[in-house]
Protein backbone atom coordinates (compact mmCIF):
# COMPACT_ATOMS: atom_id res chain seq x y z
CA UNK A 1 0.00 0.00 0.00
CA UNK A 2 1.58 3.34 -1.04
CA UNK A 3 2.01 5.97 1.65
CA UNK A 4 1.00 8.81 -0.72
CA UNK A 5 -1.79 9.25 -3.24
CA UNK A 6 -0.89 10.25 -6.80
CA UNK A 7 -2.16 13.78 -6.18
CA UNK A 8 -0.26 14.13 -2.91
CA UNK A 9 2.92 12.86 -4.48
CA UNK A 10 2.68 15.29 -7.39
CA UNK A 11 2.00 18.18 -5.07
CA UNK A 12 4.97 17.30 -2.86
CA UNK A 13 7.34 16.93 -5.82
CA UNK A 14 6.14 20.11 -7.51
CA UNK A 15 6.42 22.14 -4.30
CA UNK A 16 9.85 20.73 -3.52
CA UNK A 17 11.31 21.58 -6.91
CA UNK A 18 9.68 24.99 -7.04
CA UNK A 19 11.16 25.86 -3.67
CA UNK A 20 14.65 24.54 -4.34
CA UNK A 21 17.46 27.06 -4.07
CA UNK A 22 20.60 25.68 -5.70
CA UNK A 23 23.85 26.82 -4.23
CA UNK A 24 26.53 24.89 -6.11
CA UNK A 25 27.31 23.03 -9.30
CA UNK A 26 28.72 19.86 -7.75
CA UNK A 27 26.03 17.58 -9.19
CA UNK A 28 26.62 18.74 -12.76
CA UNK A 29 30.36 18.34 -12.50
CA UNK A 30 30.07 14.85 -11.06
CA UNK A 31 27.63 13.62 -13.70
CA UNK A 32 28.81 15.31 -16.89
CA UNK A 33 32.12 15.64 -18.72
CA UNK A 34 33.57 19.10 -19.36
CA UNK A 35 32.90 18.85 -23.10
CA UNK A 36 29.25 18.04 -22.42
CA UNK A 37 28.91 21.12 -20.23
CA UNK A 38 30.74 23.49 -22.56
CA UNK A 39 28.58 26.50 -23.29
CA UNK A 40 25.96 25.64 -20.70
CA UNK A 41 25.44 28.68 -18.45
CA UNK A 42 26.56 28.24 -14.85
CA UNK A 43 23.08 29.07 -13.67
CA UNK A 44 21.76 26.10 -15.66
CA UNK A 45 24.38 23.84 -14.08
CA UNK A 46 23.04 24.74 -10.64
CA UNK A 47 19.72 23.18 -11.61
CA UNK A 48 21.15 19.78 -12.57
CA UNK A 49 19.13 17.48 -10.33
CA UNK A 50 19.64 14.24 -12.25
CA UNK A 51 21.27 11.11 -10.90
CA UNK A 52 23.11 9.92 -14.01
CA UNK A 53 24.01 10.79 -17.57
CA UNK A 54 21.49 9.11 -19.88
CA UNK A 55 22.57 11.13 -22.93
CA UNK A 56 25.99 9.47 -22.73
CA UNK A 57 24.39 6.06 -23.27
CA UNK A 58 21.70 7.09 -25.77
CA UNK A 59 23.84 7.02 -28.91
CA UNK A 60 22.16 10.11 -30.31
CA UNK A 61 22.70 11.06 -33.93
CA UNK A 62 21.73 13.79 -36.39
CA UNK A 63 18.06 13.99 -37.26
CA UNK A 64 16.71 12.08 -34.29
CA UNK A 65 13.66 13.14 -32.31
CA UNK A 66 14.34 12.97 -28.59
CA UNK A 67 11.93 13.18 -25.67
CA UNK A 68 13.35 14.22 -22.28
CA UNK A 69 10.85 13.08 -19.66
CA UNK A 70 11.08 15.25 -16.56
CA UNK A 71 13.48 17.65 -18.23
CA UNK A 72 13.71 19.97 -15.24
CA UNK A 73 15.79 23.01 -16.07
CA UNK A 74 16.93 21.35 -19.29
CA UNK A 75 20.53 20.25 -18.99
CA UNK A 76 20.06 16.84 -20.66
CA UNK A 77 17.86 18.41 -23.34
CA UNK A 78 20.57 20.98 -24.09
CA UNK A 79 23.25 18.29 -24.48
CA UNK A 80 20.92 16.16 -26.62
CA UNK A 81 19.91 19.11 -28.80
CA UNK A 82 23.50 19.60 -29.93
CA UNK A 83 23.84 15.94 -30.90
CA UNK A 84 20.78 15.77 -33.16
CA UNK A 85 21.45 18.86 -35.26
CA UNK A 86 20.85 19.86 -37.99
CA UNK A 87 17.46 18.23 -38.48
CA UNK A 88 16.75 16.63 -35.12
CA UNK A 89 14.86 18.11 -32.23
CA UNK A 90 14.21 17.60 -28.55
CA UNK A 91 10.94 17.78 -26.64
CA UNK A 92 11.36 18.53 -22.96
CA UNK A 93 8.46 17.61 -20.71
CA UNK A 94 8.08 18.47 -17.05
CA UNK A 95 5.16 18.83 -14.66
CA UNK A 96 6.65 21.78 -12.78
CA UNK A 97 6.09 25.16 -14.45
CA UNK A 98 8.93 26.77 -12.51
CA UNK A 99 11.44 24.26 -13.89
CA UNK A 100 10.13 24.71 -17.43
CA UNK A 101 10.51 28.47 -17.06
CA UNK A 102 14.14 27.95 -16.09
CA UNK A 103 14.65 25.62 -19.08
CA UNK A 104 13.20 28.17 -21.47
CA UNK A 105 15.35 30.93 -19.98
CA UNK A 106 18.55 28.89 -20.31
CA UNK A 107 17.69 27.71 -23.84
CA UNK A 108 17.23 31.31 -24.93
CA UNK A 109 20.55 32.26 -23.36
CA UNK A 110 22.25 29.42 -25.26
CA UNK A 111 20.39 30.26 -28.49
CA UNK A 112 19.17 26.66 -28.74
CA UNK A 113 16.26 26.54 -31.13
CA UNK A 114 15.63 22.84 -31.67
CA UNK A 115 14.03 22.19 -28.27
CA UNK A 116 10.41 22.69 -27.35
CA UNK A 117 9.06 22.58 -23.81
CA UNK A 118 5.74 21.22 -22.63
CA UNK A 119 4.06 20.90 -19.25
CA UNK A 120 2.81 17.34 -18.79
CA UNK A 121 2.86 14.30 -16.55
CA UNK A 122 5.16 11.38 -17.29
CA UNK A 123 2.15 9.08 -16.86
CA UNK A 124 0.25 10.84 -19.68
CA UNK A 125 2.71 11.96 -22.33
CA UNK A 126 1.12 14.34 -24.86
CA UNK A 127 2.66 12.69 -27.92
CA UNK A 128 1.40 10.25 -30.55
CA UNK A 129 2.32 6.57 -30.56
CA UNK A 130 5.70 5.82 -32.11
CA UNK A 131 6.59 9.46 -32.61
CA UNK A 132 10.08 9.69 -31.08
CA UNK A 133 13.39 7.91 -31.65
CA UNK A 134 14.84 8.22 -28.15
CA UNK A 135 13.46 8.80 -24.67
CA UNK A 136 15.70 10.23 -21.95
CA UNK A 137 14.72 10.14 -18.28
CA UNK A 138 17.09 11.26 -15.54
CA UNK A 139 16.21 10.84 -11.88
CA UNK A 140 12.52 11.23 -12.53
CA UNK A 141 10.89 7.79 -12.65
CA UNK A 142 11.40 7.37 -8.91
CA UNK A 143 9.15 10.39 -8.33
CA UNK A 144 6.14 8.59 -9.79
CA UNK A 145 3.70 6.54 -7.75
CA UNK A 146 2.77 4.78 -11.03
CA UNK A 147 6.14 3.75 -12.43
CA UNK A 148 4.82 1.01 -14.72
CA UNK A 149 2.34 3.45 -16.20
CA UNK A 150 5.13 5.99 -16.82
CA UNK A 151 7.33 3.33 -18.45
CA UNK A 152 4.42 2.17 -20.61
CA UNK A 153 3.96 5.75 -21.81
CA UNK A 154 7.65 5.99 -22.70
CA UNK A 155 7.33 2.74 -24.66
CA UNK A 156 4.16 3.94 -26.39
CA UNK A 157 5.71 7.12 -27.78
CA UNK A 158 8.86 5.35 -28.99
CA UNK A 159 8.96 4.01 -32.53
CA UNK A 160 9.65 0.27 -32.74
CA UNK A 161 13.39 -0.12 -32.24
CA UNK A 162 13.60 3.26 -30.52
CA UNK A 163 15.82 3.60 -27.46
CA UNK A 164 15.23 4.45 -23.83
CA UNK A 165 18.15 5.84 -21.80
CA UNK A 166 17.15 5.98 -18.16
CA UNK A 167 19.02 7.03 -15.03
CA UNK A 168 17.32 6.45 -11.74
CA UNK A 169 17.64 5.39 -8.12
CA UNK A 170 16.99 1.80 -7.11
CA UNK A 171 16.83 0.07 -3.76
CA UNK A 172 18.69 -3.13 -3.06
CA UNK A 173 17.02 -3.42 0.34
CA UNK A 174 14.20 -1.51 1.98
CA UNK A 175 14.76 1.75 3.79
CA UNK A 176 13.28 2.19 7.28
CA UNK A 177 9.54 2.88 7.30
CA UNK A 178 10.08 6.36 8.76
CA UNK A 179 11.90 7.30 5.55
CA UNK A 180 9.29 5.71 3.29
CA UNK A 181 6.61 7.83 4.98
CA UNK A 182 8.60 11.06 4.74
CA UNK A 183 7.45 13.61 2.18
CA UNK A 184 10.95 14.95 1.56
CA UNK A 185 12.20 11.44 0.83
CA UNK A 186 9.41 11.07 -1.70
CA UNK A 187 10.90 13.98 -3.65
CA UNK A 188 14.04 11.89 -4.13
Amino acid at each position, binding site marked *: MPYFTDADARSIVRTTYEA*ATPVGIDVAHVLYAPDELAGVPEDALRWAFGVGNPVRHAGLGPGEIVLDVGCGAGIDAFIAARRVVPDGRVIGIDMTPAMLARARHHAAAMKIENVEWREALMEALPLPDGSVDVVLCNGVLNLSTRKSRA*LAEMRRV*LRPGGRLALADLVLTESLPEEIQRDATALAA
Partner: protein
Amino acid sequence: MLERKLVNVGFDRVVLRDRRPFGLATLARYPIFAPEFLDFVERVVPPDRHDALVYAVDVTATAAT
Protein backbone atom coordinates in the same frame (compact mmCIF):
# COMPACT_ATOMS: atom_id res chain seq x y z
CA MET B 1 12.57 -5.21 -10.56
CA LEU B 2 13.24 -2.30 -12.95
CA GLU B 3 14.26 -4.72 -15.70
CA ARG B 4 11.07 -6.71 -15.19
CA LYS B 5 8.95 -3.56 -15.39
CA LEU B 6 10.69 -2.53 -18.61
CA VAL B 7 10.12 -5.93 -20.23
CA ASN B 8 6.50 -6.01 -19.07
CA VAL B 9 5.68 -2.78 -20.92
CA GLY B 10 7.37 -3.80 -24.17
CA PHE B 11 11.09 -3.09 -23.93
CA ASP B 12 13.84 -5.57 -24.71
CA ARG B 13 17.64 -5.53 -24.78
CA VAL B 14 17.74 -4.03 -21.28
CA VAL B 15 21.35 -3.21 -20.40
CA LEU B 16 22.72 -1.92 -17.10
CA ARG B 17 25.34 0.65 -18.16
CA ASP B 18 26.46 1.94 -14.77
CA ARG B 19 25.67 1.45 -11.10
CA ARG B 20 26.91 3.72 -8.33
CA PRO B 21 26.21 3.86 -4.60
CA PHE B 22 24.15 6.88 -3.63
CA GLY B 23 24.73 7.71 0.01
CA LEU B 24 24.28 10.55 2.46
CA ALA B 25 27.20 12.56 1.08
CA THR B 26 25.72 12.39 -2.41
CA LEU B 27 22.28 13.32 -1.13
CA ALA B 28 23.75 16.42 0.51
CA ARG B 29 24.77 17.78 -2.91
CA TYR B 30 21.11 18.22 -3.87
CA PRO B 31 19.48 21.43 -2.63
CA ILE B 32 16.07 19.79 -2.37
CA PHE B 33 17.17 18.18 0.90
CA ALA B 34 17.32 20.38 3.99
CA PRO B 35 19.96 19.72 6.64
CA GLU B 36 17.16 18.59 8.98
CA PHE B 37 16.18 15.87 6.52
CA LEU B 38 19.78 14.72 6.13
CA ASP B 39 20.08 14.55 9.93
CA PHE B 40 16.87 12.54 10.04
CA VAL B 41 18.16 10.05 7.47
CA GLU B 42 21.46 9.76 9.29
CA ARG B 43 19.59 9.03 12.51
CA VAL B 44 17.16 6.39 11.27
CA VAL B 45 19.31 4.54 8.74
CA PRO B 46 21.92 2.16 10.14
CA PRO B 47 25.45 3.60 9.78
CA ASP B 48 26.58 0.73 7.58
CA ARG B 49 24.18 1.98 4.88
CA HIS B 50 25.13 5.65 4.99
CA ASP B 51 27.41 5.27 1.96
CA ALA B 52 24.81 3.40 -0.09
CA LEU B 53 21.25 4.31 0.87
CA VAL B 54 20.23 3.45 -2.69
CA TYR B 55 22.02 2.91 -6.00
CA ALA B 56 22.01 5.19 -9.01
CA VAL B 57 21.77 3.21 -12.23
CA ASP B 58 22.06 4.07 -15.90
CA VAL B 59 20.00 1.68 -18.01
CA THR B 60 19.26 1.45 -21.71
CA ALA B 61 16.49 -0.52 -23.38
CA THR B 62 15.00 -0.87 -26.83
CA ALA B 63 11.36 -0.64 -27.81
CA ALA B 64 10.54 -4.15 -28.95
CA THR B 65 9.68 -4.46 -32.62
